[in-house]
């Protein structure tokens, strides 16, 4: 669609007019146009970004809380724990596993543990002597979910993972505020055989974990799954394996001992005591 012809009527030539009448291809005009466009666009974009940032942060936080509530509410029995402890406030923190310290500047929302584990900088190779859960690599940081009541930690929920018979096993272990007593073990991502290894999800088997302690008075790691006869001296720390599911039981044993041990959340749990 062609333009209408230009207005050529004589007019008092202000400096603005002279600017506008510069020939298009002149260097001065090119630079001027380029500069003006850059300034206007940059101002527009930066204003929008800065002005909208608070709202965006709010949105991200709200989403994180919603996802967290969803994660925590998947732990069977969590409702009664909430009722018992009177706690309703779930806080997510990112923990540096090696030191056990919370890293306040890290954002837990959108954190992908699997991706981070593979990343050369965010993840680290686990030395084979320590890699009881056969993970190969793990992320340097992990999210922890703290259920607090009036500032006091009542429940600690930790994400755990290991290698099962059919594939990776993932889930959460919930410990009471002392960081040493198991309240619940929820392993809901796995490929174990139905009716055999998959019985890690059986309420009956899971109920056995209630009250088991992770470490003894000397601080030694005692938690585990007994694949042979459960010895009386281990009863406070271990549960019987699932009969017929030796590999799965061993996998659960390994993943618990890894993540609750010194190469996993051990340092963090010590800060709670």
């Amino acid at each position: 669609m062609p333009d209408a012809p230009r207005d050529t009527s004589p007019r008092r030539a202000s400096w603005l007019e002279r600017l506008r009448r510069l020939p298009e291809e002149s260097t001065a005009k090119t630079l001027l146009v380029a500069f003006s466009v850059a300034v206007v666009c940059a101002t527009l974009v930066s204003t929008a970004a800065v002005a909208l940032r608070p709202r965006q942060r709010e949105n991200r936080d709200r989403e994180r809380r919603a996802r967290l509530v969803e994660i925590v509410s998947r732990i069977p029995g969590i409702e009664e724990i909430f009722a018992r402890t009177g706690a309703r406030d779930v806080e997510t923190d990112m923990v540096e596993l090696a030191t056990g310290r919370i890293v306040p500047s890290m954002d837990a929302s959108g954190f992908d543990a699997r991706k981070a584990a593979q990343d050369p900088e965010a993840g680290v190779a686990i030395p084979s002597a320590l890699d009881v859960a056969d993970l190969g690599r793990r992320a340097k940081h992990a999210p922890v979910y703290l259920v607090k009541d009036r500032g006091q930690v009542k429940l600690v929920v930790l994400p755990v993972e290991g290698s099962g018979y059919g594939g990776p096993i993932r889930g959460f272990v919930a410990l009471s505020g002392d960081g040493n007593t198991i309240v619940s073990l929820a392993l809901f991502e796995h490929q174990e055989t139905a009716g055999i290894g998959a019985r890690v999800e059986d309420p009956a088997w899971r109920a056995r974990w209630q009250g088991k302690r992770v470490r003894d008075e000397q601080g030694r790691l005692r938690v585990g799954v007994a694949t042979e006869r459960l010895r009386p001296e281990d009863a406070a720390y271990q549960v019987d394996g699932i009969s017929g599911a030796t590999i799965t039981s061993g996998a659960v044993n390994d993943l618990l001992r890894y993540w609750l041990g010194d190469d996993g959340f051990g340092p963090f749990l010590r800060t709670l005591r």
Partner: protein
Amino acid sequence: MSGPLKTLFDAVFVENLALSFFLGMCTLLAISRRVSTAIGMGVAVVVVQTITVPVDYLLHRYLLSAGALGWAGLPDVDLSYLSLVSFIGVIAAIVQVLEMALDRFAPPLHASLGIFLPLVTVNCAILGGSLFMVERKGDFVDSVAYGLGGGLGWALAIAAVAGVRERLRYGDAPRGLRGLGIAFIVLGLTAIGFLAIAGLRVG
């Protein structure tokens, strides 16, 4: 297979920019009528992508992302919202420079490839490659592999489609489907083929 080689392989086959993510379709559809022109376009894309993805990666890593300006004493600055316009600016600039360099140092190459270069600027696959690289959180070597792989994958796609379309000229497609319609169907079938490779893990 690990590291950069795996990235390269994945970018060409498993995460093909054209057939798995459907980027650069307009250009692909427009240029895939003849294999010779398609290959020319493919080469241009490979060259540009291999250069722009690492450059954009560095730009993002050391200038734009949150905390990137720490080396300049400004660790709290987050300029990632400028990524889009910066990337496209870099791409346009690199293409322009490439075109001028070709014209100066390799005129015959410029004669055959030169016309494709401006089209490459607006090829969504180029920008998409850089944007995806930001999400990948790899390192510099990874970005080179990803750029190369992304370009090769796209070139593979356009060459394959052009090969089929050239033959289809002698086919007997219904009148309403000739040209664009048949091209879409060819693309769809090729994409289905690539679905079979998605999720493939080698090594």
